[in-house]
């Protein structure tokens, strides 16, 4: 929108008034970042750092190199991502942009956001349009500031949400990589078992004790098992590169190593009771949606928009954003202190507010459903892993050791015993898969509890959350 031509004298006085009014709107980006950091540290993530090309960047790089030089832990990997993931850094810049907007809101004659405020031209033959515009601006600036405030809040929440998502993606990638390493080890063991059987048969063939047919059969099984090893190796490469992408690493920095064992199942599982409320209370997207509603209400000049908008259950801990209860109402009318607004505009504004409210409600319902579903998946994967570890694997071990006794008693050859060993390893592979699935879906649950509505990109499609995402489509944040 073009800047209005303004009488300099009037502008000067107006500006001085505006500056006084707009003074409180001049918030620094450091403060914004600090708020964002608080948002994520409440959710268990620390170490957010905004690269601005200053001296501290070099210190951060040194810290990253230090972390990479030793065996990389999960926390270390998350730390590196927060410091080094350039997409995340780009997101932080959004704060700068939001701040600029905020400052803009305090300045005269700035454009209004989103085009959601409409001014009807009010012309009188005696009025000076510029003056009128100034006057309008004087009235509107507080509104604009409130809108800009809300927009900044939304941005903070969005940035916090991105940080949580990246942290969760790093966790999922880390778990998947550990599982892939263990899987490779076991596939290699299978190849060694079949290789031993093949070697034995080869020597028996040399002594003339078995046929070429027997030798070919053994060799076929052995060579075929090598394909599984190759697939496992490729899987590791892929997962490593996904981690490199998340952690912003390239070149020499990509030869890090991690512990190649998945963590064991924790002794107890978090109960479902209270999880839904925890999720809804802390959800960043729901909070952003509430901010958005505030923003729109503010755009319509509502002083206390909270009165007119429906409630969302928050459980024990009320969000600090909410002020009082939200009333439910199919329709409501409220005075919009806009000069010369036509009825159609008012109706449209009402509808927009109600619409945003419905979306918020739907979002909360969807979040609750996802929390319940994800928790069920966590329990199921836990039970599966536990059963494999406690019942199936010991039985397979028993079969193998009993078969070895039969071999010692010279009742069977060693090949059937090695096949029993292979069955034991297969049960182990099932366990690794179940344990991995458990940790992945648990990460998803964590993410839901700590602020996001949906799993991150790092989650495997066939994991728990991938299954759940298909159940209910998400609610997008409307602008």
């Amino acid at each position, binding site marked *: 929108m073009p800047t209005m031509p303004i009488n300099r004298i009037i502008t000067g006085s107006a500006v001085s008034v505006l500056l006084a009014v707009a003074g409180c709107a001049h918030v620094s980006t450091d403060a914004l970042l600090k708020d964002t950091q608080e948002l994520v540290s409440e959710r268990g993530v620390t170490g957010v750092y905004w690269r601005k090309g200053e001296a501290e960047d070099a210190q951060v790089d040194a810290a990253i190199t230090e972390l990479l030089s030793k065996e990389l832990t999960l926390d270390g990997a998350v730390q590196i991502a927060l410091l080094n993931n350039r997409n995340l850094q780009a997101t932080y810049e959004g704060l700068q942009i939001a701040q600029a907007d905020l400052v803009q809101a305090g300045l005269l004659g700035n454009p209004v956001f989103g085009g959601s405020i409409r001014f009807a031209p009010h012309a009188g033959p005696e009025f000076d349009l510029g003056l009128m515009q100034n006057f309008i601006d004087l009235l509107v600036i507080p509104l604009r500031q409130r809108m800009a405030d809300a927009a900044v809040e939304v941005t903070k929440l969005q940035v916090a949400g991105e940080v949580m998502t990246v942290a969760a993606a790093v966790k999922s990638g880390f778990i998947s990589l550990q599982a892939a390493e263990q899987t490779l080890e076991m596939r290699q063991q299978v190849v060694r078992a079949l*290789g*031993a059987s093949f070697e034995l048969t080869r*020597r028996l063939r*040399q002594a003339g004790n078995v046929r070429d047919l027997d030798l070919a059969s053994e060799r076929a099984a052995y060579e075929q098992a090598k394909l599984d090893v190759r697939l496992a190796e490729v899987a590791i490469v892929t997962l490593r590169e996904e981690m490199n992408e998340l952690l912003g690493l390239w070149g020499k920095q990509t030869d890090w190593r991690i512990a190649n064992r998945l963590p064991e199942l924790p002794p107890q599982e978090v109960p479902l009771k209270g999880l839904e409320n925890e999720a809804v209370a802390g959800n960043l997207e729901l909070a952003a949606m509430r901010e958005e509603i505030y923003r729109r209400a503010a755009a319509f000049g509502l002083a206390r928009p909270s009165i007119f908008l429906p409630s969302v259950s928050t459980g024990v801990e009320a969000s600090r954003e909410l002020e009082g209860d939200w009333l439910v109402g199919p329709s409501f009318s409220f005075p919009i202190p806009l000069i010369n607004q036509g009825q159609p505009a008012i109706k449209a504004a009402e509808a927009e507010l109600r619409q945003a409210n419905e979306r918020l409600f739907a979002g909360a319902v969807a979040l609750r459903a996802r929390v319940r579903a994800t928790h069920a998946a966590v329990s199921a994967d836990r039970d599966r892993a536990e059963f494999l570890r406690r019942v199936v694997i010991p039985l397979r071990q028993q079969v193998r050791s009993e078969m070895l*006794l039969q071999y*010692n008693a*010279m009742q069977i050859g060693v090949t059937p015993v*090695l096949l029993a060993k292979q069955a034991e390893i297969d049960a182990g592979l099932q366990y690794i898969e179940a344990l991995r699935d458990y940790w992945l879906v648990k990460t998803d649950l964590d993410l839901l509890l700590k602020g996001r509505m949906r799993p991150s990109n790092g989650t495997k499609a066939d994991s728990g959350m991938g299954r759940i995402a298909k159940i209910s489509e998400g609610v997008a944040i409307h602008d």
Partner: protein
Amino acid sequence: MKKLSGQTTSDREERVNARISNRVSRVSRRQVLTHGVMLAGAGVLLGNRPAGAETSASATHENHTSPFEGEVSSTQQASPGEPGRDYTPVIVPNGWTLPFEIVDGVKVFHLVAEEVYHEFTPGLRAHCWGYNGAVHGPVIEAVEGDRVRIFLTNKLSAPTTAHWHGLIVPSGMDGVGGLSQRAIAPGETFMYEFTLRQTGTYMYHAHHDEMTQMAMGLVGMFIIHPRNSEHPRPDRDFVLLLHEWAIEVGAERPNPNEMTDFNVLTINARAFPGTESLVAKQDDRVRIRLGNLSAMDHHPIHLHGFSFNITETDGGIIPENRQWPATAVLVPAGTTRVIEFIADNPGDWAMHCHMTHHVMNQMGHDFPNMIGMNAKGLDEHVAELLPGYMTMGQNGMGDAAEMGMPIPANSIPMVGGNGPHGYITMGGMFTILKVRENISNYDDPGWYSAPSGTTASVASKETLRANGVKRDGSSAPRAPKRSKR
């Protein structure tokens, strides 16, 4: 070895004298006096056969009431024969003889068919079916002319019967379930009664669902001594019953459905090293009665150290000039064979079935052929995946048991016994006849100490040189080359 009842040195001398004088025993003379002509006639029919005389069925029918006719008249029955007086009781290694009661001149025996948890040799036990708390059933021992009454109580869960293998009895006493009699239901007690009208080595076994019940162990020996015999009583009279079982390694019950792959071979239901040795004094007359109730196999029983005569079958005594000399006697399934010899060769003598698989304990037949395989480095490769693995069998089965590998519980695969010169790599249907000079009783005398110079050992350098023999075998003649075709 139990001390033989009534067998003191003076008794033996007396009997030797009796043989020389070829007199009829005091007992038979008394019998002639008490029972008169008829008995003497019976004696001619059944027992007292002078050497060379032939008896035939027709002679039987000419002179006396047919033995196949209904009730047996009490006049054909003799007073119950007494051990010692009328016969020298047999020796049953690892087994026992069934005691009897005399009730109104009838020898009364009581058999109880029941499940028994039986030990084949230390380390292998199984749930089998036997009689009176043991497997196999006890030896039933009587004398020609005895009237015997045998009660059979069935404590099994299945119906059973007893058939008297080789005995000539009334049709209804023959014991074939469904044919001769109703099968004995679980919990019932039946009575068999008949007069013994023959001598020899016979057997008894279940004859209802035989495949199952005999395979489970319901078998035993039935010995009938002659009433009057000119044949000298042996000094040692052994009874050995041969059998075969299929017991999976680690299992505790024989599988009666097995038809070909038997892995436990027994003498009196024991497998070596669990077989009690047969002990004889040098120059003893030794008789060994062999019965075979294996399901599917005949057994050529080979005795080391002696040449013996096969003197009897389950049909009767073989006339002396028709007896076969042998060192191995084939005992077909369902038959008995008796051998006799003088134990004039002191030492420890192996006696065993000569089917080589029958002297192995629980050998498995799915083990691959490892003979001649180069196993270098293989153990480490496999042991990484199977802790404790060791390659076995490249040099045969000899050292399998000595390797001491952990094996399934309750099994004796390839197990043998410790001998005086090392491990004896035999098992199953294998026992030892120990012949000793100068022993005062027949307890196991331990291992034989061969006189010096009579044990095969490493040839010394001097000996080799004196005989022109090279130790590495290079001085030995080579097989002539076959001409090219």
